[in-house]
């Protein structure tokens, strides 16, 4: 056997590692469920998931619940990207803007998105905007912070070089600062996506009629553990899918 094949075999085994870890996780879950009544088995959960795909739970099917949550997360995410990148660039680029506004941001940043819920209800009511607002607060912070660090930590040699090569202020922003900070911005966007999913559960506590968070709250009220597990698995799976897509996108837009 040549050296290449010797190395190729362990590499193939390495690819199976995620599958092995999933199997181990399911086994532990199954064993734990056998020991107590407080946890449904993976098989029961899978059966419930299959049933919920076709039969309505709380008046709509599972895919409707997923879609409702997804729309809230993505709407908030789009707003968070626009606001986070804009403010992050301003914080990183303008010393004056940074000194003027950053202390306020630092003051607001540690407040958890959930703590805003009462105020948001008072301001925006209990409709869709309030749910999107909670997700927005959760998503905007990682994007803003990462954009700010990406811009402020950009090697000054790049800026000096671009200036001396003839770049004006606009070209500096579009041809140097934004592409230079892009890896950091993308990291912020990736974190923000997960953060948005975390917040949507809290947001759907506000008089929602559909959504995965709502499903969890309803199932908790009726003591339906299997449905809670189904919703939790779906949140994890959708987020995993988005993270995977994001990693692929990162390779395309940021190949360096």
């Amino acid at each position: 056997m040549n050296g290449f094949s010797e190395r190729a075999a362990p590499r193939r085994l390495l690819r199976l590692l995620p599958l092995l870890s999933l199997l181990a996780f399911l086994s532990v879950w199954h064993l734990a469920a056998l020991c107590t009544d407080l946890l449904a088995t993976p098989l029961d959960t899978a059966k419930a998931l299959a049933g919920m795909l076709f039969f309505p739970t709380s008046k709509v099917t599972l895919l409707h619940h997923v879609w409702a949550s997804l729309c809230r997360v993505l709407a908030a995410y789009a707003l968070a990207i626009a606001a986070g990148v804009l403010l992050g660039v301003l914080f990183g680029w303008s010393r004056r803007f940074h000194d003027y506004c950053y202390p306020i941001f630092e003051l607001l940043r540690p407040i958890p998105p959930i703590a805003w819920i009462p105020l948001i209800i008072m301001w925006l009511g209990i409709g869709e905007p309030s749910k999107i607002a909670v997700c927005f607060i959760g998503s905007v912070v990682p994007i803003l912070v990462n954009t700010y660090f990406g811009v402020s930590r950009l090697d000054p040699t790049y800026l000096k070089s671009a200036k001396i090569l003839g770049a004006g202020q606009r070209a500096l922003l579009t041809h140097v600062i934004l592409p230079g900070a892009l890896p950091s911005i993308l990291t912020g966007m990736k974190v923000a996506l997960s953060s948005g999913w975390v917040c949507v559960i809290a947001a759907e506590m506000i008089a929602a009629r559909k959504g995965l968070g709502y499903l969890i709250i309803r199932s908790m009220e009726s003591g339906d553990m299997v449905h809670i597990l189904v919703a939790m698995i779906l949140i994890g799976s959708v987020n995993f899918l988005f993270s995977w897509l994001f990693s692929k996108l990162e390779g395309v837009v940021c190949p360096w």
Partner: protein
Amino acid sequence: MSDAKVQVRQLTKGFGELLVLDNLTFDVRPGEFLCVVGPTGCGKTTLLNLLSSWWTPTQGEICIDGRAMDPKTQNLSFVFQESSAFPWLTVEQNVQFGMKEKRFPPELIAQRTREVMGLLDLESVKEKYCHEISASAEQRVVIGRSFALHPDFLLMDEPYAQLDIKFRLHLEDAILALNRSTGSTCLFVTHNIEEAVYLAQRCIVLSNKPTSIKAVRTIDLPYPRDTCSPEFIAIKDEITEMIKWW
């Protein structure tokens, strides 16, 4: 009227009580390759920061073609000691960066890109990003990007300091070829006396702080220079003797 491309007159820079550069006056002729050498910490980088307009002098003036130097209207370029190739651009895009910013016509950009990449042996890696090429190739990209503009005045701050000796020799020849083909006026700062003697038509030797010009040595050896020739060694020893502080 002087035939100098760049005129530096009574250039002085101090930081509070500390006088770093004291009354430097020299000319750089059109198309000339001028090296500046001096002991470590004598203010070579300060001189470059003034010549590139990053800093303003305490006193004195710098003129290009008889006009006060202004990077906005004059074609200046700078090669830093550390690599400044943009990692988000390919080799070819890096070389074209300055030309595109200055809105050169597309045909001229294409022609100069070919010319510079050919001279610096970058054709085979033109589609690659900087993390995919060697440190020496990366520094060649930066040098090519500057020369592609055919700058009025090109400043270089020990661009080979991070490279090992075999790449240095190769790059020194490439830089001389570019200087000849573009006709750009170059000022090259280095602490490596052998490098200065290999490259320069004239060499300015700086003193310790407060820094003044100790000597201006014309090096009239033919190119390519033989670093082992007695004449080369004699000039190198002469400059070393001037820089010696011990």
